[in-house]
């Protein structure tokens, strides 16, 4: 490796769709016949497959949680939700319980980041996450509330704050990650998404006016098929306008985030995901998955993962052999299960 002229070292995915299908269908089968209990082990095998097949600098990642840890964490969260529901039926106590939950969320999020980090490793070194309660409270409770008051026009600020909190907390073998960025690129992403929405709505609007004008409204009540088709058309229009816009935003923001991410020691990252490619892959994946009753989902997952890893790179400033991990105290899977349920996934940037 020539360190005077730093090169881009792309991440490499060495898995295959065929191989993954076997594991995926076994996961599905075992999860169904164990009424969902195996899903904890399935999650571990999924993460292991994708992590262990992702390489940078000739070395791969790994995932270390056990199915039992994940299962216990999930069981605790489900029990807590049931307890919360029962308690909330009592008027005053319900209010206090809700307040307690809001105050607990930053704590749970930090635990989740910590658990996910500790269970992930690269080249035999575990990741670490450290974050303050106050930072998590601001980024995940206060700022979202404030952003709602701006009718989400300030969303790019919120997004940047959340990413700052998450990424700056990670470290690998004693070397910290750091992320910061001007707000401009986030707003460029936001505006690009907005342009898509407005453009699509205008196109759809003009098409709809034409077709409604030619529609005989009298048939709508007696022909349920026509009114259903109209409603389906409206929903399709909403999908075409909004969902690709979210993907556009995420593609731009991913690039900004990784391009401004550094690893202590002078190492930097790069991402050149193209929004149009990402939309094309996401939409074709979605259609093929649905049409195949879900059986093409593993192929779709590998295709998307390969695209993302192929467009992510490390710009190393030197050899990557000097990372040394610390002895870790064990963290429980409780936080991980909570964000599982909430759908947060801020694990590795890939």
């Amino acid at each position, binding site marked *: 490796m020539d360190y005077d002229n730093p090169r881009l070292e792309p991440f490499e995915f060495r898995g295959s769709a065929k*191989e993954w*299908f*076997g594991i*995926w*269908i*076994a*996961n*599905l*089968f075992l999860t*169904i016949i164990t*009424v*969902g209990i195996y*899903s904890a082990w*399935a999650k571990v095998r999924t993460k*292991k*497959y994708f992590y*262990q097949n992702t390489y940078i600098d000739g070395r*791969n990642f*790994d995932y270390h949680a056990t199915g039992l840890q994940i299962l216990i964490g999930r069981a605790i969260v489900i029990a807590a939700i049931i307890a919360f529901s*029962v308690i*909330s039926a009592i008027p005053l106590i319900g209010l206090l319980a809700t307040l307690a939950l809001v105050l607990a969320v930053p704590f749970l999020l930090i635990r989740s980041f910590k658990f996910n980090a500790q269970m992930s490793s*690269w*080249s*035999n*070194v*575990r990741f670490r996450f450290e974050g303050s309660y106050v930072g998590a409270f601001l980024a995940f409770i206060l700022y979202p509330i404030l952003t709602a008051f701006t009718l989400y026009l300030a969303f790019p600020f919120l997004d940047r704050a959340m990413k700052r909190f998450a990424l700056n907390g990670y470290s690998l*073998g004693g070397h910290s990650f750091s992320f910061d960025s001007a707000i401009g690129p986030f707003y460029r992403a936001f505006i690009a998404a907005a342009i898509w929405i407005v453009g699509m709505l205008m196109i759809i609007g003009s098409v709809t006016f034409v077709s409604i004008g030619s529609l005989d*409204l*009298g048939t*709508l*009540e*007696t022909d*349920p098929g026509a*009114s*259903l088709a109209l*409603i389906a058309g*409206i*929903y399709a229009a*909403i*999908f075409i306008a*909004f*969902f*690709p816009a*979210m*993907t556009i935003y995420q593609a731009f923001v991913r690039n900004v985030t990784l391009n401004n991410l550094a690893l202590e020691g002078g190492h930097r990252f790069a991402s050149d995901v193209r929004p149009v490619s*990402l*939309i094309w892959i*996401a*939409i074709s*994946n*979605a259609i093929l*998955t*649905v049409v195949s009753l*879900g059986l093409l*989902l593993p192929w779709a*997952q590998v295709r*998307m993962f390969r695209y993302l890893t192929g467009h992510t790179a490390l710009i190393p400033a030197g050899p990557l*052999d000097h990372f040394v*991990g610390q*002895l870790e105290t064990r963290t429980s899977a409780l936080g991980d299960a909570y964000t599982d349920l909430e759908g947060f996934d801020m694990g590795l940037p890939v």
Partner: protein
Amino acid sequence: MPGESDQITIPGRFFPARSSRAVPANLFAGPHGFVIRARDDNAEIADHHGQARFDAPIGRAPRRLSLPDGALFETEDLAAVDALDSGSGSQILHRLEGFRRGWTIITILCLIGAYCIWRFALPALVYIAVWLTPAPLKTAMDAGTLQSFDLTIADASRLSITQKDSIQGIFDDLLETLPDKDRERFTFELTFRDVPGIGPNAFALPGGTVVITDAFAETFDDPDIIGGVLGHEIAHVVSHHGLEQLYRSLGIYVLVALVAGDTGPILNDVLLEGGVLLSLSNSREHEREADELGMRLASDAGYDPAGLLRFFETLPDAQSKGGDWFSTHPSSGKRIEAIREFIEAR
């Protein structure tokens, strides 16, 4: 010990304790212990008693042996490690995952299983979720929904007090016929809104809020019709239809995520937000149930259930006058038939 015939040699690389540095090495595994030597100078770098236990295999990824001090030995010689740990439980799973000839039958079984989940497990989960939802939460959901409604398409009602009072009276009559235990589980409240564009309409929110449009009050003043429609909406509330629809779509999202994994950015959003959007409109089953229960409530309160029939018969004319192309109460011929049957049976 070199030279022993029952020893297996595995080439790979060695990572010192918790370090990222990789050293080419060989592992010599015997029945009672194993030794790891650096490849270039054959110097011993690790020595352990007990069997060499590699981590479970997954696909064709390199096999790893984790040492207690945090060191790691990794090899791509999968055949050699397979020889070492043949017969273990993780090997069975690994073989199941690689057994391509079995894929067809497993896939068919999975499709059947998925159907069974959708048909039986999902309704059960929805039932439990509805049962677990506390009343204050339902009321809060109503408030939130009504607020977004007001912010977007609804305006304050322009009806006169007498108009509102007469409709409120019919609403109260219908509530009286509800058994106390049903009535107490919700916070029933009738609200009026002016919603230009959707014509004469009424809909119910999960916590007990029933919204009725000005266009409805201005088109229909027959108490039987109003009774029939309000009874229908109250029936939706009491039967938890709104909440059931919502939990059904959320349940599908959670089950798919749990069982199938990550569905990708767009399909994910379609399943979640799309599903919730679709849950806004009631199923035909729900509409039929609400028709029946609603007409029963109306007739118990002293109104003529045929009012609901007259509503559907008058509706097309009313709607084309009001430009209502966004029909949220699709009425099929079958539905009108079912209503007729109910009336004749009484």
